[in-house]
Each structure stands twice: as structure tokens, then as C-alpha cells.
């Protein structure tokens, strides 16, 4: 089903090397991928496997050492600030740690107004802006009237992450990269956040690139799964294919490492 749709974001031989000499680290090692429009893709791997580096390259926050990224079938060009701004209208991100994702000196209104301005709504009357912000907040079950004039650090971790989703709701990008959006949050809020993310995807029909170390979560949300080890994709395919019939030992280990209730947890592979 996925292959029928248009390619949205693809890469060839994408490589990132940090440092040089003895400190040279190969973070991402010649990866190829092809994400399609409207798809939910999971990139699964353990800490240090290069997931976040890959995400930052996709976002254009760091430049790849080698390789090319194609966006909507064309070679991505983010050489100037204007082009980057245009690119970031289409691709957005949710970061892992909600506590460090916000500027602690900027009020919540500022965060949301930035999004409205980016969508070209800077000239709108104040009432219209407040209406938009209220709508975005109520989408994630937050009350804008209570949040206005507050600072992000006055909220709980779950609320901050929901605010992040409200931000994406206002921006309506084509692609959303969610970099472990639930790993800093307790299990109950996690389900809520995932729920809102999936709801948002259905609402604006975006491609969701879901980066996680939790293969159970990946199976639960995604259409296709990429397994990453030491900067390489070792296995890829549809979620059922990869998780129910894993070919690689690394994938099997990842599946094994998921703790299961009512079952003895085999720690021998860890």
C-alpha cells in the first residue's frame, strides 16, 4: 500500500561523521531510505545508534558529511535562511525532553504566536489569533485561557508535550519527526500523547517519522519500521513483517528486551 504513494522524503548514502583523528565517530553510516506521504514510519534502535543524528539531518539542523536528501522528489536545498524557513514550513519536530525544549524566558503565547506567524498569519487581528490558539490548545485538551501569560516551565511534562502537539496543529507541516516524544513521560500520559499524535496525523494527513527505542510502541503506531544499529539500517519493512517475523538477531534482541507483564523477563540477552 505504501509504495503506491509518492515519495515524500528520501535519502541516499546519508553519512554523518563527528570529529576527526582519534575522536572520529561515525554516527550515521551510509543509510538509504524512502518515506512516503501519509505513512507512519518508525526508526527503532538503542541509545547511540544514530537515530537523533539522522533526525537532525532530516530536519536540516546539521549538515550531512556525505549523501543526499530528496524532498518531494527534488534535491533538498536549504542553503539560505529563506530556503530553510520555507523547508521548515513543511517539516517539523517534537523533541524528547519537554523540559529543555522550551525557552524558559518566552511565554506560552509567544511559542504559539510564532507558529501562527510562520503560517503567514502575522497580520491577523488579535481576536483571530487568540481563536486559533484556543482551538489548537483544545485539540490537546488544554485550556488556552489558563495558559496565557504563563511560562512553559510552570506546566507538567505531559502538558508541555501536549503543547508541543498544539504547536504542530497550528503549523500543519507535511512531515513530523517525533524524536522519542514519550520517553521522558510516565506511562499514563504516554498513551494520551500517542493518542493525540495519531489523531493529529489523521486530521492533517502528514507523514509521521516516529523515532523510538521502544519496539512495542513502534509496532503499535507504525506502517513500516526501520531497525537501526551502529548508524546503519539493519532491517526494514512493514511493521508486521519486521516485528512478527524478524530476520536479524539484533531485531530479535530488541523484541526480547521489551518487558512483558505476566511473563518472565529474559535478561540474559541484555
Amino acid at each position, binding site marked *: 500500500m505504501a509504495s503506491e504513494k509518492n515519495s515524500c522524503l528520501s535519502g541516499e548514502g546519508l553519512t554523518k561523521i563527528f570529529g576527526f583523528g582519534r575522536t572520529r565517530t561515525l554516527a550515521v553510516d551510509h543509510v538509504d531510505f524512502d518515506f512516503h506521504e501519509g505513512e507512519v514510519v518508525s526508526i527503532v534502535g538503542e541509545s547511540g545508534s544514530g537515530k537523533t543524528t539522522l533526525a*537532525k539531518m532530516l*530536519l536540516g*539542523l546539521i549538515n550531512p558529511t556525505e549523501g543526499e536528501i530528496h524532498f518531494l522528489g527534488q534535491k533538498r536545498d536549504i542553503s539560505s*535562511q529563506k530556503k*530553510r*524557513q520555507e523547508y*521548515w*514550513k513543511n517539516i*517539523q*519536530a517534537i*523533541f*524528547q*525532553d519537554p523540559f*529543555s*525544549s*522550551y*525557552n*524558559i*524566558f*518566552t511565554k506560552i503565547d509567544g511559542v504559539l504566536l*510564532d*507558529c501562527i*506567524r*510562520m503560517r503567514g498569519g502575522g497580520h491577523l487581528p488579535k481576536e483571530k489569533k487568540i481563536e486559533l490558539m484556543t482551538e489548537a490548545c483544545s485539540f490537546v485538551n488544554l485550556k488556552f485561557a489558563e495558559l496565557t501569560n504563563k511560562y512553559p516551565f510552570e506546566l507538567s511534562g505531559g502538558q508541555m508535550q501536549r503543547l508541543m502537539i498544539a504547536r504542530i496543529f497550528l503549523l500543519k507541516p507535511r512531515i513530523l519527526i517525533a524524536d522519542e516524544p514519550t520517553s521522558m513521560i510516565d506511562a499514563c500520559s504516554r498513551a494520551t500523547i500517542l493518542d493525540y499524535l495519531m489523531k493529529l496525523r489523521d486530521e492533517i494527513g502528514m507523514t509521521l517519522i516516529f523515532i523510538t527505542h521502544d519496539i512495542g510502541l513502534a509496532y503499535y503506531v507504525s506502517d513500516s519500521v526501520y531497525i537501526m544499529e551502529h548508524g546503519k539500517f539493519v532491517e526494514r519493512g512493514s511493521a508486521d513483517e519486521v516485528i512478527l517475523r524478524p530476520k536479524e538477531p539484533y531485531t530479535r534482541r530488541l523484541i526480547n528486551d521489551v518487558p512483558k507483564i505476566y511473563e518472565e523477563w529474559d535478561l540474559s540477552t541484555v
Partner: protein
Amino acid sequence: MQYSLRQAFRSGKFVTGFALFAAMLVIVIVYPLIITYPPLQIIAQGTFFPPGIYVSTYDSVNAPTTYTLNLDDAAAKRIASKLKAEDRTAMKEWLVAAGIPESEIDAADTAKLLAQWEANYDPKKQVAGMTFARSRYFQRVNTSISGLLSSEGAILATKAPDTGALQQAGTVKQTDYVNVSEIPNVRLLPLGTDNFGRDVLTELIRAAGVSLEIGLVAGIIATLIGLTLGLLAGYVGGVVDDVIVFITNLFTVIPGLVLLILISFSLGQDKRGPVTIAAVIGLTYWVWTARSVRAQVISLRNRDHVNLSKLSGHSIPHIIINDILPYIASYVIMAFILQISSAILAEASLSILGLGPRTTDVPTLGLMMNWAMIYQAHLLQKWWAYLPVLVTIAMITFSMNLMITGLDQVFNPALRD
């Protein structure tokens, strides 16, 4: 930001330092408004007059009313001020050397001692083993005690303008007193005068003001340069970073004071005003601010909130001002205070070497030290010429360092008591 400011005033150290600094600032501002003497006016003929109240003798003699006070200890005090215990012992020594048996001399009995002295002292007499300086000393003692026991008053005389003959104008009895508040000319010199005969206190307060100005100007210049270069190097990176780090390293390896001396020297005496000196200090003392700001910015620029700001389409200046600067503001404020205090010290070091601001215009703390040193106040034991200056410099830097320690505890919870 408001939170940390309020917290700063809860830190005892910060409040103490701030109060000390504010008090000095108030004195520097208010004193010249009340006491309007020019700070560098030469009032004393002679060097290093000791601290005290100076009463015009002429006005005392011609006071409108004189009062008679019969005080029991007046005569004893008058004698004690002219004939000290060490003078008595010296006189006894001379008399013994002149051949009077030691048992007959009582140094405590003033009348008897003076009578014996009167009868035996001969300035021309050569005493064996006595140096010239010592015999001069005895001549001085002899002059100062003449008429010591007299109970007569002094006669005031005026010169007749045509003949030049003296005419008695009045007498001053030993029991005559004047009220100081009725004397028109009384000058309080709490810290005496300096080598040029200038009021040290007035000079000191003006000097503290000028030194604070120099510190402030130098601090602003150094912090602005350091901050700008640090932010650019840290955030922009790449070639910009390489060039800035190269320049910074160049400045680091040249000792700051040497650079300062060379620049001040090459400017020449005429161009060295306080502002020029402040600018020179500022231009050489920015290095450490630049280095540490750069280090902090590098650790900040990959934080998620900066990434989020980029994704929101903000420009580089917007990100630097809104997402980087507030996070390092606390550090920059502390560095700024430190720059002020080290600039004041740098000015003092420069001036002591004679490379400070131009001398005829305004005093600075360093210049006052320089003058005291050149005129050997420390060897002559004229403590009022240099000790108050030292204390002032110490107080300014102490109050600022106290503020920094207090702020450090506020910004770094690990250091809290």
C-alpha cells in the same frame, strides 16, 4: 529573571556587598554637592599636614569676645605638650653628663628640673661622645622650654604705618579662651593634606568617583567586546570562530598589564584622559569574557530550545538575542562586575607606574597612590596620604567581589549554604 533578582537580595553576601557599594556611591555623589571645594586646589603651604581641625590664629587673637576660664589642669597640659617624658629623660642625661649627681635630679619635678637646666645648660659645652645631631636636639629643647613656667600673658603689638614703631594693641592672658564657633575661619581636614597641600578627603572622594567611572566605562567596553565576540564565535562557528579564537589567543598570551603599559605609553601624556585610559583598559581586558561566553554558547547552541527556535523560522540575531543571551545573562552580569573591579585595579597599577590619566585635571585613586609614593609618604610615616586610598580601593573591590559571591550562590544552587 525577576525570580533570580529577588533571590539575589535574599543572599546575605550580595546584600552586604550591595549596601557597601551603594553607600560609597551615595558618598561619591552627595559629598561634592555639600562640600563644594575644588578637589585639586592647593590650600596648604607645605607638605603633609596631619589630620585635624585647623583654626585661624589671627582670627582667634582678634576674636570679638574672649572668655576667661579658670581650669586647674590648663598649666599642666601646656607644659606636657612642650616637655614630653622623653625630653625629661634626655635632659636628665645631659645634666648627669655635665657633672650633677644623679640622686639630686628628679625628672618628674618640672620646676626643679627647669631650674637645674637653666643653671647648667650651655649650648657651647662639648659633652664627650655626643653627636652633632644630638646636641642640636638639646638646643631645640632649650628653645621650646624657655618661658614655660611663665604665668604672664603675651602682648600683642601692631606696627605704626608711618614710623614702623610698635604699639601695644592688647594682651592675651593664659586664661583667655575663644569659642571656635565664633571664629570665622576654621577648616576641618579629616585626612590632612597631601604632598601638594591639597585636602586629602575631598581629593579622595573625587578620585573614587573618577575611578568608578573608569571602571564602569572599561567594564562596559570589555564586556561588550567579549560578549559580541564570544556570541559570534560560539554561535556562528566555522571560520568566524577560528578567526576570533586566534585573536583571543593572541591577546591571552600577551600579559594584559604589559599590553596596557605599552598602549598607554605610546598614547603620550597629553592624550591620556580618564576616558582614554578606561578605553585602553577595556580594549585589553575582554579576553576572558570572550572565551567563557564562547564556551557557554557552544554548549547552548545545540540545545532543543534553540533547535525549536530555528524550526520556528527565527533569524540568527533573533536566536542569539532571545534564546542564547538570556541563558548566559547571569554569567555576563557577574563578569561585568568583575571587569569593573579589575579595571579599577588596572588603573591603579598603571597610575602607580606614572602611566595613568593626565595629572592636572582630576585625581584618581591610582594617581593619589602615585603622588604619595613619589613624595615618600610611606617613609615619612604620613599614613593619611596613602592608607585611606588603599582602604577605598580595597572596599570597592571587596564590595563587588561580595556581590559576585552572593550572585554565584543564587545562580548556582550547588553553592548555597
